[in-house]
């Protein structure tokens, strides 16, 4: 189990910064920018929530396997594929949280910062980001839990290779197949704890809107 746990943690370590950066950026664009195709983009980024993991896995497999440059990187059935597989279904959660967090910051506050001498990046850093930090932390907690829990997409594009791509959920599956219920239960309990902790964090973040985080 130790191996699987380490791989899961490595996936998390790679995906959390990516979730935060991509989720915040896309969420900000969707919340604050008016442009053609915005509605289509907002549906598109939500698609991974609505599609079955096997369908997503299939398309990712075909995409990575056929696009000339990606084809030669040797991504499939390796650790990067596991990280990507876990990222795809978690990203919409982060984007939605960031989007609603940014949208809830009154535009007047951002305008006030502008008239007080801030450029756009400073407005974002000093007002928008600080006022939506609770939504962002809550979103990141939920998205991280989803990252840890991915099964289907990982299986489709990264496989179930112990020591390389076997994450905790896949480990549970393998142990079940081998009728090793004790091992499966232990890993499952670990993931349950992670789930509860992340939900507790979400609740804590939702309790105060503008207060400092600690």
């Amino acid at each position, binding site marked *: 189990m130790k191996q699987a746990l380490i791989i899961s943690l490595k996936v998390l370590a790679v995906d959390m910064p990516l979730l935060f950066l991509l989720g915040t950026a896309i969420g900000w664009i969707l919340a604050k920018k008016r442009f053609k195709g915005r509605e289509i983009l907002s549906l598109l980024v939500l698609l991974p929530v609505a599609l079955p993991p096997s369908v997503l896995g299939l398309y990712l497999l075909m995409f990575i396997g056929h696009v000339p440059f990606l084809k030669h990187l040797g991504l499939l059935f390796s650790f990067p594929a596991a990280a990507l597989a876990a990222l795809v279904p978690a990203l919409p959660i982060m984007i939605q949280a960031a989007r609603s967090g940014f949208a809830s910051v*009154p535009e*007047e*506050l951002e*305008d*006030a*910062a*502008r*008239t*007080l*001498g*801030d*450029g756009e990046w400073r407005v974002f850093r*000093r*007002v928008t980001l*600080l*006022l939506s930090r609770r939504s962002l932390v809550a979103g990141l907690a939920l998205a991280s839990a989803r990252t840890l829990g991915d099964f289907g997409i990982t299986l489709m594009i990264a496989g179930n290779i112990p020591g390389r791509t076997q994450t905790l959920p896949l480990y549970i599956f393998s142990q079940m197949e081998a009728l090793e219920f004790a091992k499966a239960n232990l890993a499952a309990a670990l993931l349950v704890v992670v789930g509860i902790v992340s939900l507790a964090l979400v609740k804590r973040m939702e309790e105060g809107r*503008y*207060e*400092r985080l600690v």
Partner: protein
Amino acid sequence: MSAWFEASLDHQVGEFRLQIDLFLEREIGVLFGPSGSGKSLTLRLLAGLDTPKRGQVHLGGRQLLEVPGGIIQPPRQRRIGLVFQQLALFPHLNALENVAYGLSGSRRYDIAREWLARVDLKGMDQRYPAQLSGGQKQRVALARALAPEPDLLLLDEPFNTLDSPLRRSLRRELKRLHRETGVPLLYVTHYIEDVCSMGGRIFFLKDGQLTGNINVDQLWNTSSQVGAWHALGWGNLLHGEVCRREGGTWFVWGEGALELPASVQIMGPVSVFIPPNHVKILYQDIPVDPQLVPNVMHGRVVERVSIGSTTSLYVAAAGLQWQLEFPIKSYDRLDLKEGADVRIAVRPGSISLLEHDRGGSEYENTNTAPG
């Protein structure tokens, strides 16, 4: 011979067209007009939060805007402070941090502390906006906007949500800050009391068009009932006298009289203001509200103008021309075409007293919040 601040703006939002020319020395300007006349939009365009279709803005020898012409300075470079209608204090920052927001350098918190002291908020440094009263929030917002020493301060009906004694004290405070700092102010309002007591130059804005500007002193020109105000402004400004008779307090002018609320204490010459949406038209067959009975006048429709969803009616009654405003669908049953006879009435509580001898201080009984 250009003024400290000059602006010429032409902007279109949907059906609404805004055309306005403003100028100010280092003085107080008041932009007066009813809701929806484009006042807030004007401030946004000046501050650089929106860009007009065409326009120019000069301030303190700097050109901030020239469209077309390609000069559009972003808000951060304009040195124009803005006090928002809803104040827009940063909820995650305390009073001191709010005031220091637009400042930089190692002394920023010292300067911010001095500003808090200047607006009577010494010792409130650590309070968050949610822990401040309405008036205290206003003061923080003023200090925050003034602390970076702007070349012009814009105020968007900032005292709207406050009751009248507090409004009065904040207006005094604002005038004091203007004297001390020399920062010119452009104050936007639809309250007549604000116009009279902030003083300076008054710009009248109506339906996106500037109808003119006068100095506040000209407001008290009693030589004619149909003076500068009537030609330019919005609402009914009357000059006359307060006297007691028939057991009540009355405002009397040449050919008419209106009963005032019993709480009115002053006597002698005054001007009064009645917002056009507070002049009511009476139906012939419906009993009149007892409060209105003493203040019923018979008149004749002189002009009827419908713009958007509002109808403006000009009625000749009691020797004056009255301006009325109501939603376009109202009074459908009455045939209010030009030349028709009408009965109009004013509730005593809708009459604002403006005492011109003392340059426009106001009285407790005023109740003019239109719509």
